[in-house]
């Protein structure tokens, strides 16, 4: 390659165009919710759930064995009454639950009566609920904070994950297609 004046001028321009295109793609994927720069990808994708058995919030809890014998895929949602994004997400969860999407909930580090009161006050989108007061099961799931959601197929295999709150766009673009793919 000859390093003449023209190539020397074109090189930074070409580099800028390439970098700009890459940044544009990243920003667009961030906006669509398909890319989270702070997201920690799950180690569980296409793997069975970690073993756990948790007590309930009001009544019976559930464990990994229960999630491995469901009639179809379910959404497993980690939440907490003290977490603002969870409160934001709650309305959406109630919406999709009303459309027939089965959601199971685990209250993360939400000891005491608050979790139950939260569900009583704001409505309960969950088919079944459990509580992880110590947050130890959440670590086995690789949870970094709440809310986080998984799609678990009827054999208890994790098929999809998102760290952070669900949005209508993510539900339409990612969650529902996954649910349909694993019926």
């Amino acid at each position, binding site marked *: 390659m000859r390093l003449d004046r023209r190539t020397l001028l074109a090189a930074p321009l070409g580099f800028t165009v390439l970098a700009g295109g890459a940044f544009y793609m990243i920003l667009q994927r961030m906006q669509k919710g398909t890319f989270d720069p702070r997201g920690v990808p799950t180690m569980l994708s296409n793997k069975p759930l970690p073993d756990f058995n948790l007590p309930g919030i009001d009544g019976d809890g559930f464990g990994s064995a229960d999630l491995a014998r469901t009639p179809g895929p379910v959404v497993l949602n980690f939440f907490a009454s003290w977490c603002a994004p969870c409160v934001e997400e709650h309305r959406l969860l109630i919406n999709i639950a009303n459309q027939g999407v089965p959601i199971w909930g685990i209250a993360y580090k939400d000891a005491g009566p608050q979790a139950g009161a939260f569900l009583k006050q704001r409505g309960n989108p969950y088919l079944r609920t459990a509580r992880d007061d110590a947050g130890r099961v959440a670590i086995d799931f*690789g949870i970094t904070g709440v809310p986080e959601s998984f799609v678990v197929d009827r054999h208890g295999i994790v098929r999809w994950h998102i760290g952070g709150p669900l949005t209508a766009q993510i539900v339409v673009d990612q969650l529902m297609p996954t649910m349909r793919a694993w019926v």
Partner: protein
Amino acid sequence: MTKRLILLLLAAMLAWPGITWAISDPSEALANPSAEKRAVEIGEQLRCLVCQNESIEDSGADLARDLRRIVRQQVTAGKTDQQVIDWMVSRYGNFVRLRPPFNALTFMLWASPVVALLIGCLLLLVGRRRRAPPAAPLSPAETMRLKGLLEP
């Protein structure tokens, strides 16, 4: 005299063994100092998943405290450093390691200083080759003429 004192002070500060100012409360630490030292060394290699640019030893986040406790439990149970780190990686992936391993995905990360050096050397070589050879020195006649031109 004062200068010497300041220098001595500076040298002493630099030579002082690095004290780890753990923000965790002392009740977290293991009673056995050598086990605690190992736990700190392991924890310093693990990323706090909440703050992401701190190790779990440095972080004040809740999750970091939980992970510190797990590291200490496993150290007490006689696990090796590698076993503890593997336990974390199996849950949070290689992202949890502050020092990423060398593999197919990360080789560019590790190789980039060498690649940058090679590119620099290449540019230097190309630049040197393309530089025009220095002009031949002036002949005695030319020197004379130059002198004539410069001196009125």
